[in-house]
């Protein structure tokens, strides 16, 4: 009998149409927890990281954590792991909603999708019955259409994860959409799903998640529930203004990247901020599975050229489609955000790519003829049009759909790409938040804000306040309380947003009674470290080196204006200090003793020569 875990991994081979079930290796689960950790570990056992990302050998792994679906607060997350089509690094995108818990209710800890189907198919999983069905009816449909059609074709209550037209057309910015509007967005996981011709996965689970000690578990869960509902951030500002409440704050700090990172202050930020969203387009809040926070914003633009309905825009989306493109019209930003949802593409990368194209256009590297229309910063209609073309891969959109790295390279200005390891940065300027600079540079999936959101310490003071402008002593902060901790939290199945109200210890207090395994605080620290190192080894084996741990040159130049004019990303020697703290050599490779300590020696020979 398994507790917390369901004990089964479902393997579907699309090339041969085979479905097999494997038992979960509990020892592996104990080392890698679940979710991000376990799925990454499974991936490393499946492939050699050197393979082509868009090849049939690259499996798509849907993983859940031991807490996913247990009903403890905010236990809704599932992850998608593969070798990333956009970046070539290891990919781990995650999403909430109700799809993750449904995987558990159907009886699986993870789904491994291998091979490639010749025809569009979808997967229909009803508890232990698994069918691969033709998706010819669904191909070309948006996620919302796909979900309603599939619920008719399968079960009215089945939960759906699918790709939109962006994923079908192999846009490297495509994500996987579940519950209509939620995206496991980054790294291009949707492109791989599209390559496999897998339109959707529909799941209906009638089982449940067993708990080793239900009473203790529920007690711990309710303690957490009380902490979250008593917290002014989780239960206050997130509910009242959503994540976008940050827009004005970060802009006030002069850390809100604007016009493809040419500036760090957006003069019209307030028009696209959380307060404006709440006042102008908010319909109501909704929640993911078992979540008291309910930060999701159901919004609607009721009329005009940007009419539409959906969820969001969230902080990152309102930034990438707004400030980063110089756009201050909230309705246009909301529309672009809805369109990204309809096409199933990542809002951050989409906005960043359009911003990059805008800069290319304004500097003359890209002509109006090539794009088909002038694409200037601040032109909201052009921005929305570019999103639409990107989603459809129409005309110039065909080039945009592969992300800003390839776009900037193609037009001879690689310096206009604002990201790390081909993944675009997010809405915290590394010129101001030095911790974020280090985190962007060293993150395993490229520049990303949810691999270690040091802004928590550098602004809100969680766990303790460290001024954003200094990097001294932040290496350890980036490493442990942020990167490693996030790796652990992502592996449990609980949402990162609970972390403003609760700590690691409380998550561990849930894990033990849920699983019956002795998960505790001390082990969680090692587990986080282990997961991070495993991802690093994957990347090293895939060909990444210390030279890839670097920020775009632009952010090392002084910020031109705003309250933080003159500040810039300092990094410099701090990367070496960070490597040392991690137990890596100066090439950024884990030492043999470090791997031994983490019990990771069995993997490819990527560790340091000298010890």
């Amino acid at each position, binding site marked *: 009998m398994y507790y917390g875990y369901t004990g089964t991994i479902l393997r579907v081979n699309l090339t041969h149409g085979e479905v097999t079930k494997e038992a979960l290796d509990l020892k592996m689960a104990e080392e890698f927890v679940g979710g991000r950790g376990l799925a990454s570990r499974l991936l490393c056992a499946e492939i050699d990281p050197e393979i082509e990302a868009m090849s049939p050998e690259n499996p798509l792994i849907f993983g859940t954590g031991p807490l996913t679906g247990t009903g403890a607060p905010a236990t809704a997350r599932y992850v998608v792991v593969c070798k990333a089509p956009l970046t070539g690094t290891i990919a781990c995108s995650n999403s909430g909603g109700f799809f993750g818990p449904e995987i558990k209710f159907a009886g699986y800890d993870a789904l491994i999708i291998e091979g490639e189907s010749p025809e569009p198919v979808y997967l229909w999983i009803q508890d232990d019955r698994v069918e691969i069905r033709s998706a010819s009816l669904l191909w070309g449909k948006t996620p919302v259409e796909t979900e309603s059609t599939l619920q008719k074709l399968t079960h009215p209550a089945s939960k759906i994860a699918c790709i939109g037209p962006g994923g079908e057309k192999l846009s490297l910015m495509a994500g996987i959409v579940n519950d209509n509007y939620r995206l496991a967005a980054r790294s291009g996981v949707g492109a791989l799903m599209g390559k496999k011709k897998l339109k959707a996965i529909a799941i209906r689970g009638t089982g449940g998640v067993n708990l080793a000690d239900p009473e203790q578990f529920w007690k711990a869960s309710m303690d957490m529930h009380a902490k979250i509902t008593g917290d002014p951030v989780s239960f206050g*500002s997130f509910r009242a203004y959503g994540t976008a409440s940050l827009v004005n704050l970060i802009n*006030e700090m002069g850390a809100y990247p604007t016009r493809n990172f040419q500036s760090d202050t957006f003069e019209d930020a*307030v028009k696209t901020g959380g307060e404006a969203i709440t006042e102008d387009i908010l319909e109501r809040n909704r929640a993911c599975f078992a979540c008291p926070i309910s930060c999701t914003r159901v919004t609607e633009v009721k009329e005009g050229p940007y009419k539409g309905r959906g969820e969001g825009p969230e902080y990152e989306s309102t930034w990438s489609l707004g400030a980063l493109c110089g756009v201050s019209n909230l309705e246009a930003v909301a529309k672009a955000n809805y369109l990204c949802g309809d096409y199933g593409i990542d809002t951050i990368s989409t906005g960043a790519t359009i911003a990059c194209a805008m800069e290319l256009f304004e500097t003359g590297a890209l002509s109006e003829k090539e794009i088909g229309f002038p694409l200037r910063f601040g032109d909201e209609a052009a921005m929305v049009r570019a999103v639409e073309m990107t989603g459809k891969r129409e005309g110039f959109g065909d080039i945009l759909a592969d992300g800003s790295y390839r776009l900037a390279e193609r037009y001879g200005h690689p310096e206009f790409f604002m990201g790390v390891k081909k993944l675009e940065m997010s809405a915290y300027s590394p010129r101001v938040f030095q911790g974020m600079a280090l985190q962007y540079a060293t993150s395993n999936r490229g520049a990303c*804000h949810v691999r270690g959101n040091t802004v928590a310490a550098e602004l809100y003071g969680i766990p303790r306040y460290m001024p954003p402008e200094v990097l001294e002593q932040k290496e350890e902060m980036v490493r442990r309380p942020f990167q490693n901790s996030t790796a652990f939290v992502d592996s449990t199945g609980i949402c990162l947003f609970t972390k403003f109200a609760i700590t690691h210890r409380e998550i561990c207090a849930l894990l033990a009674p849920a699983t019956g395994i002795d998960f505790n605080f001390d082990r969680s620290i090692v587990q986080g470290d282990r997961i991070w190192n495993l991802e690093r080894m994957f990347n090293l084996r895939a060909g990444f080196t210390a030279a890839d741990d670097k920020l775009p040159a632009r952010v090392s130049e002084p910020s031109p204006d705003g309250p933080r004019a003159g500040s810039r990303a300092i990094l410099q020697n701090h990367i070496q200090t960070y490597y040392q703290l991690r137990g890596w050599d100066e090439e950024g490779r884990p030492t043999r003793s470090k791997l031994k300590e983490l019990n990771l020696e069995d993997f490819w020979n990527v560790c340091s020569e000298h010890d």
Partner: protein
Amino acid sequence: MINVTVKLSADLRRYRPALRIDESLPLSVPEETTLLELLSEILQIPAHAIAIPIVNGVKCKLNQKLVEGDRVAFWPPMAGG
């Protein structure tokens, strides 16, 4: 007297409901006024409602003294992603 501007965001806006979201309050305050005095005596907002006080883009403590031209912005507890 020194001139400063004050911005109230998110939940704090209920203390000045008439203020538009893109508006900041222009105030002239006595020299040496601290942020705490600004809050308690002038704006009459309880200090515990403030989590993040920002002056000219820099988070600071409530005992900081204001100087001419300061851009003050107050935030309640908040975070995002």
